């Protein structure tokens, strides 16, 4: 924002938001901004405390809609085929999220599930809002009690939110309680991306990953951090990598659990739809096949959001529609989530899944979040997984059940200053959410050598 233009009055903003919410929907979430009363002199750059709170009638309304779900008929493929993971999934196996899984989810969501537990958990954390580049950015900010903690900004993805990162806050900020030493401590900053969660929704185009990356550096500096690291998976990985490409002097390294490592000649082979090049090693060949399959059969949702996000009206009008859309991210995480609704919770519980979906519902952010795909498409110079020429130090987790498992060879090529190549025994796309211990280990290991600087 130009310093010459007057900062928008906070009260005006709230009034406008409230009017817009009322005008657009009875079901829209109402946030309770409990920031201190703004004054005419208030700086846009002020950092204001924020409290998470949703009116009970919003929760009641959600339950009412859940109970009124109007179902399609069952998919026409077998359960076994629908649950195949990327290792064995073939074209034509799945038609999407299974009816049986959805019915279990909806049954639980509309009866036993208790949002207030999640709300209480969120409330137990320090939340803030600050305006950056004209937009209110929400973030959780937990400082470690240990001296010399390394500041880290961790970015969630789609269909995630700050909720997917809650389990790693204590291990990172309070390492001595989680198999670490005081020297492993981090100060943690977890923002909601624009259009996601409690951050404001952009009303103008332009909030692509590059702009978010710039905003994150502003945020960290505003918090007084002049030497920090950044971490992310999914969109968070892309944004973190953009920060690394910009390489502001304050950013000393990054860690990513969805590393973009695909070398240029492999990018070309994938684009041409070629079979795996003959000279690939076994890990590379598997990665190639995973990406090729995902591009061909697994990207429908991303494609739709990149091209026509606004057409997805059903996601904000139908809880079941939102839930199925969010469940269908990638084959391996879907199989894991589906099992959790069968009573086999592994890394992700039913409550984990529904906390996140409920947040999307209550904040009415299904479409505003989807626009990030559209924004990316307007300006992206490379694909999600393509190596982008990062030169600052990078730590990596190559999870075995990620969309593709980044081979070490490609990772070393993509990141010349590789700090750490973590290969956890378990972990899907939502690493911090599903396997917080392995995630924490890798993050600690990645940045260990930078602490002494």
């Amino acid at each position: 924002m130009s310093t010459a233009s007057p900062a928008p009055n906070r009260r005006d903003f709230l009034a406008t938001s409230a009017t817009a919410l009322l005008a657009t929907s009875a079901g829209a979430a109402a946030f309770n901004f409990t920031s201190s009363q703004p004054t005419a002199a208030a700086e846009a750059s002020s950092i204001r405390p924020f409290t998470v709170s949703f009116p009970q009638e919003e929760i009641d309304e959600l339950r009412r809609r859940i109970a009124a779900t109007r179902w399609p008929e069952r998919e026409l493929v077998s359960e076994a085929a629908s649950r195949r993971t990327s290792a064995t999934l073939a074209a034509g196996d799945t038609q999407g999220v299974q009816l049986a899984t959805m019915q279990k989810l909806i049954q639980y969501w509309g009866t036993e599930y208790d949002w207030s537990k999640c709300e209480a958990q969120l409330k137990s954390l320090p939340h803030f809002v600050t305006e950056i580049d004209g937009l209110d950015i929400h973030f959780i900010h937990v400082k470690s009690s240990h001296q010399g903690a390394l500041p880290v900004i961790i970015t969630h993805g789609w269909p995630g939110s700050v909720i997917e990162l809650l389990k790693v806050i204590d291990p990172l900020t309070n390492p001595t309680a989680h198999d670490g030493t005081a020297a492993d401590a981090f100060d943690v900053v977890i923002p909601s991306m624009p259009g996601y969660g409690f951050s404001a929704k952009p009303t103008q185009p332009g909030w692509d990953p590059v702009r978010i990356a710039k905003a994150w550096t502003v945020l960290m500096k505003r918090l007084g951090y002049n030497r920090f690291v950044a971490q992310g998976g999914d969109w968070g990985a892309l944004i973190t990598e953009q920060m690394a490409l910009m390489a502001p002097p304050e950013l000393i390294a990054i860690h990513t659990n969805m590393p973009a490592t695909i070398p240029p000649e492999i990018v070309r082979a994938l684009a041409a739809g070629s079979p795996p090049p003959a000279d690939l090693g076994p890990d590379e060949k598997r990665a190639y096949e995973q990406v090729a399959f995902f591009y061909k059969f697994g990207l429908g949702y991303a494609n739709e959001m990149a091209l026509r996000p606004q057409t997805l009206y059903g996601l904000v009008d139908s809880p079941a529609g939102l839930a199925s859309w969010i469940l269908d991210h990638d084959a391996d995480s879907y199989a894991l989530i589906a099992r959790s609704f069968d009573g086999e919770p592994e890394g992700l519980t039913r409550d984990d899944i529904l906390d996140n979906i409920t947040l999307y519902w209550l904040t009415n952010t299904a479409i505003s979040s989807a626009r990030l795909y559209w924004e990316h498409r307007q300006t992206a110079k490379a694909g999600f997984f393509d190596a982008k020429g990062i030169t600052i130090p990078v730590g990596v987790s190559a999870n075995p059940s990620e969309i593709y498992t980044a081979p070490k060879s490609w990772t070393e090529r993509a990141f010349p200053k590789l700090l750490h190549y973590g290969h956890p025994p378990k972990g899907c796309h939502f690493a911090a959410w599903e396997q917080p211990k392995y995630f924490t280990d890798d993050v600690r290991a990645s940045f260990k050598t930078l602490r002494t600087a």
Partner: protein
Amino acid sequence: MKLHTLAAALAFGLCILSALSQANAAEDRSIRSFKVQVPQAALEELRRRIAETRWPDRETVDDQSQGIQLAKLKPLVEYWGTGYDWRKAEAKLNTLPQFMTTIDGVDIHFIHVRSKRPNALPLIMTHGWPGSVFELLKTVGPLTDPTAHGGRAEDAFDLVLPSMPGYGFSGKPTETGWGPDRIAQTWAELMKRLGYTSYVAQGGDWGSPVSSAMARQAPTGLLGIHINLPAVVPPEIAAVLAVGGSAPTGLTDKERAAFDALSAAAKMGNRSYATMMGTRPQTIGYAINDSPAGLAAWMLGHPGFSRWTYDNSDPEKSPDEVLDDITQYWLSDSATSAGRLYWEYGGRSVVFAAVERTLEIALPVAITVFPEETYLAPETWARRAYPNLIYFHEVDKGGHFAAWEQPELFSAELRAAFRPLRQDF
């Protein structure tokens, strides 16, 4: 399932079941008369849901590049929930003779209008997605009663308008395999069951691959087809388009225009809906079967509707026209089952000659090119794709939903296209 939904479904099913109950289901080849009678409760439930629509915020651009604009959809949905009257749509269907017959295990709904003219040529016409028999209704008069619509008595057709499996009031397949080839076989059986020994077929959108599959299969009695979304794109052009390449040299002006249109459509993402339904029809199904606004937006996302304004500026494209179609999808719970046709086809485009195996079609093929179609098939490519092209005509009005938008012109094209085949009839 909620009680009221269940009740509505049961009551709705009754009108089908009552027809079914007269015969043995296993071996039943009977043709039962059928009327659409949606229970009032289902209509009230729809209005209630529409009134409670929860909207997103407005798109962040001033054009259609992010999808259906809020300011365009909202008035339509509001009208749907207040002024729109399904009973008028129902009456449009019920003034026509409708039937149900079970073929290959699926109940097939169809409209069957016999011309009063002797020697009328039997014609089976197939709708597409997101269409239905509604997109074809305005051609019933011109095709079956040509003298009342500027045609000649010898141009009359007996008209068969089936709802595809999973669409409208036809049954929903409960197993995979119901792609265009199987639908084509079903249509041949339907025409046989109706006693037609010589007939022609027509289609646009999905109706085109279905009609083309019939021509490829060449069942006894089929004389030829007319299509208005032909699959003429040659393999070498398809290959370039697949990788987003630039136009090959040596194209004629019309070929170049077709290439540019297809290339631009790909770059603008006009087929994102097809990609989604081609891979995960069930996933999008939950939202569009539960949300009327969601269903409307999803259907109107088809590029064929991009020039429709959903107001009363064009009587052929009125709000009632689109809402009849959308409401039928809603009331028949067929948003998900209809989308599966894309999955059956693996999300492939229906305009590529190789995908459609057009070279295997020996029967006569006729093509009309409507100027606002998603791409304009060049005659040079059409002649390469269809070895037995008997008719190729470019007209000056109409788009993807040609029968819906320009019923008189469309009918005139069918008369002209099929005229040479009547001698064999």
